[in-house]
């Protein structure tokens, strides 16, 4: 066993797939940042709002007013440097830090895709992605002919975790038997050509989409690993992601996944991709350079495999932390994030906050639009930790306005996956007396239905 591990850690492979992955990842990220910036989202999401929702424990990470643009600039620029393979290690660390900082600024914008990018860039900090076909090679005048096999395998493993956990999360009665929430989303795509007024309206189609989505997620890593099904699998990947892109506003994610899954192809395919890139680069007037080709030598001792083992162990267990909480995960969302639960729930909510002066026994209602953007309000009304954080913000705000003996209550309702709305948070609980923690939030009213499954 140990000898097997030892020989695995020593085994090396052609570095081309990792180089292509580095180029693809860097370019996609750079483009994502430009896209985000050009849509005016930096201003809209990080500068305009008066209040930002923080992640538990990361309250110190806030947007920096106009300097926020600076962080985005660093992020976009470092992504480009990653693609070029110029000062790779520094660039990827800068990218990881700046991107993760951006994500932590306001949890309103939390997306599994962004979490995926953070994890992937963290992983890339430890991989020799500049070993081949990078500007760093030109500077050092040498190019590696091989890299450790585990470096490419770890990316494949990361991608497989994303798919498989997304698939496992779909094994629940709402998704498989009620076709929720696709049954809510698809009929409203009635204006798509051809399928809009037909397939999109059919219940059997919603069910078929749910089942095939689950089967796709669970099987695609295996189909990609296995050489004989690989081409077929990649066609599926392209079809699936392009189709979801047509249906849903999911930005760059489909393209990122399509490019990422290329890593499953063998070195020969990647050498051909690099040949194409080389051709383009030469047409642009750059001359090719003869580099000294050297083989990879394992450093001793190398802590990276150990670190990655810890990293992946956490990844394997983190999505199951919801098991430690009572009540329905989709309702309380305790342990919902960082678990590849993608497009699983449709929640609509309503939350009206009542500020009470306990001494004078008077109260007034808060207009959420005075403090939150419509997007923030939408996210706040359906997620308990947002409701609590907002209540505390309101408490501070009204205290600074001279109100005393404050108590804050919320009248809130949520409709989950097409069910009728139900009262969400206990309206008799003074939210200012509650502090956020990882413990179960007793003040969320129990879900009056049952969703079976993982």
């Amino acid at each position, binding site marked *: 066993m140990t000898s097997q591990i030892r020989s695995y850690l020593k085994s090396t492979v052609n570095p081309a797939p990792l180089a292509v992955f580095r180029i693809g990842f860097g370019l996609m990220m750079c483009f994502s940042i430009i896209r985000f910036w050009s849509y005016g989202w930096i201003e809209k999401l990080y500068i305009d709002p008066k209040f930002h929702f923080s992640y538990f424990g990361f309250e110190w990470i806030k947007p920096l007013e106009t300097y926020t643009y600076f962080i985005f600039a660093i992020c976009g620029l470092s992504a480009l440097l990653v693609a070029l393979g110029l000062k790779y290690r520094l660039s990827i660390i800068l990218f990881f830090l700046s991107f993760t900082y951006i994500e932590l600024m306001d949890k309103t914008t939390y997306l599994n895709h962004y979490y995926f990018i953070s994890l992937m860039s963290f992983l890339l900090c430890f991989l020799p992605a500049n070993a081949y076909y990078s500007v760093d090679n030109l500077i050092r005048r040498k190019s590696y002919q091989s890299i450790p096999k585990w470096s490419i395998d770890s990316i494949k493993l990361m991608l497989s975790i994303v798919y498989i956990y997304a698939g496992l999360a779909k094994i629940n009665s709402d998704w498989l038997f009620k076709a929720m929430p696709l049954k809510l989303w698809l009929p409203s795509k009635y204006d798509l050509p051809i399928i809009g007024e037909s397939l999109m309206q059919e219940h*059997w189609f919603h069910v078929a989409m749910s089942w095939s989505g689950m089967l796709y997620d669970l099987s695609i890593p295996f189909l990609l690993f296995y050489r004989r099904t690989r081409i077929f699998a990649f066609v599926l990947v392209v079809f699936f992601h392009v189709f979801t892109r047509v249906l849903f506003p999911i930005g760059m994610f489909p393209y990122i996944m399509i490019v990422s899954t290329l890593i499953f192809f063998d070195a020969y395919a990647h050498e051909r991709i690099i040949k194409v890139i080389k051709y383009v680069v030469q047409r642009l007037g750059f001359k090719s350079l003869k580099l000294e080709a050297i083989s990879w030598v394992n450093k001793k001792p190398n802590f990276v495999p150990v670190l990655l083992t810890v990293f992946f162990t956490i990844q394997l267990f983190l999505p199951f932390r919801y098991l430690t909480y009572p009540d329905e995960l989709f309702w309380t969302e305790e342990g919902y994030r960082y678990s590849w639960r993608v497009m699983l729930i449709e929640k609509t909510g309503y939350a*009206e906050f009542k500020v009470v002066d306990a001494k004078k026994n008077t109260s007034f209602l808060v207009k959420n639009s005075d403090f939150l953007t419509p997007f923030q309000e939408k996210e706040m009304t359906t997620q308990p930790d947002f409701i609590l954080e907002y209540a505390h913000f309101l408490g501070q705000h009204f205290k600074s306005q001279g109100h005393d003996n404050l108590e804050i209550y919320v009248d809130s309702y949520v409709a989950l996956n097409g069910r009728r709305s139900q009262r969400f948070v206990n309206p008799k609980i003074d939210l200012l007396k509650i502090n956020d923690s990882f413990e179960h939030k007793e003040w969320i009213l129990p879900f009056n239905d049952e969703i079976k499954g993982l």
Partner: protein
Amino acid sequence: MIKKVVLLICFVGLVIACSSSDDSNGGGNNDNFDRSGLLTNYADNIIVPAITNFQSKVLALNAARENFLNNTNQTNLDLLSDAWLDAYKAWQFVGMYNIGEAESFTSNLNGFRVYYNVYPVSLSLIQSAAAGASYSLDSDAYYAAQGFPALDFLIHGIADGDSIPIDKFTSNSNSQGFIDYLNAVQTQITTRTQSIVNNWQNNFRDEFVNNTSSSATGSISKIINDYINYYERALRANKIGVPAGNFSAGQTFPDKVEAYYKNDVSRELALLSLEAVQRFFNGQSFNGGTTSGESLASYLDYLDNSDLKNDINAQFNASRQQIQTLNTSFSQQVSNDNTKMTMAYDALQAAVVLLKVDMASVFDIQIDFIDNDGD
């Protein structure tokens, strides 16, 4: 081998997927909902008739004003008051249509209503304008000094130093200023109303009906957002909640009711507003009794949510009953027994949840335009 297993799994999945559709009655979704029929019903039978009716009342109000200014006496002021009330009632049926030309007036959350019905009205702005201060009714500082509330004060209120309402236009030292301001306020109402009506009649009707897009900028999504916005802000909050002190630490405001200076019509106006809301929901035509076309209600039926439709109508009815128990003058009601006022508010509030949460979830429309990537 693996390939075969995978193929088998895919096949089994497909079989399960297909067979599970057989025992679900097809979800009732087989014949498609006529969305352009819905928009056509709203445009041709409800919205355009309501705004042209409003336009005719505004023109009648203009005639009554000219009559009053030509022959300034109490009888003609009473006639002006009648015409004002007629137009104000007609307004209750158009205040929710912040779409098309009306939407282009302002980006304020209250929409084009800021040029028609912001109350309480600012007496100091009106009186200083009458005294010669320069003003612009288009500027947001003057939202609270125009529209029906300003006319309410000019027709029924008593200016500083006067003894009866008509003094403003006769004995008051700024009488010419008041006359000019009356003209300016009515010109503003007339001009904006004309441009809204023209826009609907010239091209917006077709644009509205043809824009069946499912996006946030499609007509269905926009009109539902306008509808809920109107119900929540203009009806629930402004007409009932604000005077009843729901937003102000229990401090009540008898002077923040609609038509405060006329004073005995606030209940009537609120009931009409609720009627407009309920008729819109059920798609009942503006002119024709109970006949109805495709509507939010029938859309809910189509989506297998008739229970929700019934609950919403029941909640509208409960709200109506609650409002009917109130004094004809909400300022009286607030001063005498505010509990009944807050009960009416609670009844209206219960429907907000049904509209904004349950209905929005079933229709899968975003409440307010949110432009960002999703998961």
